[in-house]
């Protein structure tokens, strides 16, 4: 079987980018990991680089280092420059220099081949758990609890906003300071098969700004022609 595109997205499942040039390993890993995660398996540097360049977001990237047309360290650098995607290197290059380079780039784990499936699964889970976004955020007028998907005003009033609104807010916070396009937000929150429009995203941002209140509404910053950004310091729209 050839490298695959995402299976239809269930929005709660974590998305993993798997870069592995060996067809048997890639296919076996994709099949096994797809039981628990949404997997995008690519087998060349060029295809992976293209995917990163268009700004597709992942919860984790598992990278082989030796690829036929490039190397995984350069891919990791590209991923790092476009956001804070957690990284696991899964490679036969296990010498001290390579491991050091991997950690310098910011790898969360460096797993040498041959590996145990159980160990890989444990480490994936561990990395995903350690990058769980903040569960609660306190602003000047409200406290947002993302685990309960609820908002508590400081005057004691509780609000349960629309789930999609909070998912959009959480997405912006998790990827801050990166600017997310409307398409990226739609892709991550609704999935590729749904028909949400740019207007839907804009309406949600209007509602979120009302929810944040006068003092914090500028924390969601519009970037003209690009999309939206969570700016903790607040900022003017462009």
């Amino acid at each position, binding site marked *: 079987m050839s490298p695959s595109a995402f299976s239809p997205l269930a929005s709660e499942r974590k998305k993993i980018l798997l870069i592995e040039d*060996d067809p*048997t*390993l890639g296919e*076996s*890993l994709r099949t*096994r990991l797809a039981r628990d995660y949404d997997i995008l398996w690519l087998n060349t540097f060029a295809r992976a680089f293209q995917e990163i360049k268009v700004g597709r977001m992942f919860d984790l990237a598992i990278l082989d280092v*030796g690829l036929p047309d490039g190397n995984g360290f350069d891919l990791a650098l590209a991923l790092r420059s476009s956001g804070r995607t957690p990284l696991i290197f899964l490679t*036969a*290059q*296990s*010498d*001290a*220099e390579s*491991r*050091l380079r991997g950690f310098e780039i910011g790898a969360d784990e460096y797993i*040498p*081949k*041959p*590996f*145990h*499936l*159980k*160990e890989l699964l*444990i480490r994936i889970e561990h990395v995903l758990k350690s990058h769980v976004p903040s569960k609660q955020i306190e602003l000047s007028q409200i406290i947002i609890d993302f685990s309960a998907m609820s908002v508590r005003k400081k005057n004691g009033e509780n609000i349960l906003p629309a789930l999609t609104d909070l998912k959009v807010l959480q997405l912006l916070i998790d990827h801050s300071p990166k600017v997310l396009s409307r398409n990226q937000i739609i892709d991550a929150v609704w999935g590729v098969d749904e028909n949400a429009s740019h207007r839907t995203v804009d309406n949600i941002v209007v509602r979120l700004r009302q929810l944040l209140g006068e003092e914090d509404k500028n924390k969601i910053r519009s970037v003209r022609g690009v999309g939206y950004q969570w700016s903790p310091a607040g900022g003017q729209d462009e």
Partner: protein
Amino acid sequence: MKFASLNTTIPHIHRMFLWEGSFLLATTILSGAALIFLTYRDQLRHHQLKIFFSNFSHDIKTSISRLRLQSDLIQEDYHQSERRRSDFPELHHLLENIARLDLQLENSLYFANLNESRFHLEDLNLSQLLESLRSEWQDVEFIFNEMEFKADRRAIISVLRNIFSNCVLHSKALQIRLSGRLLPKDPHFVEIEITSNGEIFSGNLSELGRAPLSLSSSKRTRGNGLGLYLSAELIRRMGGGRTLFDLTPDRHLRVTLTLPSATSMQEKNS
């Protein structure tokens, strides 16, 4: 007459010096050039060997990864079907043999490049390492007290795999105990004592950890001693002390490793 004879002898001697000198110079230049050529050829061959080893190890590791992943997947499916392992011993043997093949390859690669091996020393703890290793010996119980030390992750995993493999293969151990402590005399070092249950040790203790003179396996021990020799060498090269092999009072093998203690422990004790 005498003067005439002397006049003819001096140019003759000059010519002789000239020839001999030229010959010596030419020989020196040629020898030097030959030495440079041979050194260059040796370096080139060394470089080619290095590339060959690098490609070979990459390919073979990928192949072993494939085998191991396939067998892990089969085993996982098999466990989900709730059948007992004894129903399918071949799968268990396959996994064991893949793990042995992997260890033998790792040992060969370390042995071939021992003098050029570089280490990246980092703070590690026993629980992290055992979490990685326990999948390989699923029937073995590990008892340990937490200990932090400084080591190269790949090298220390190789050391522990060799020692555990030795315990399981030769003593048929079902329990391995690791007890670590700071050296009372020098808190910059930790000592880790590894013992196991199983059959009592019946080999020659003085041979353990020594450089294997011949890599052919001994029929009696089913091993060539390379694993324990490498373990001792790797520990030494990571800044640790001499690895000791002795027997417990009930005649089980005891391996004692000494490694630099973790940065936090060194700071605490300085």
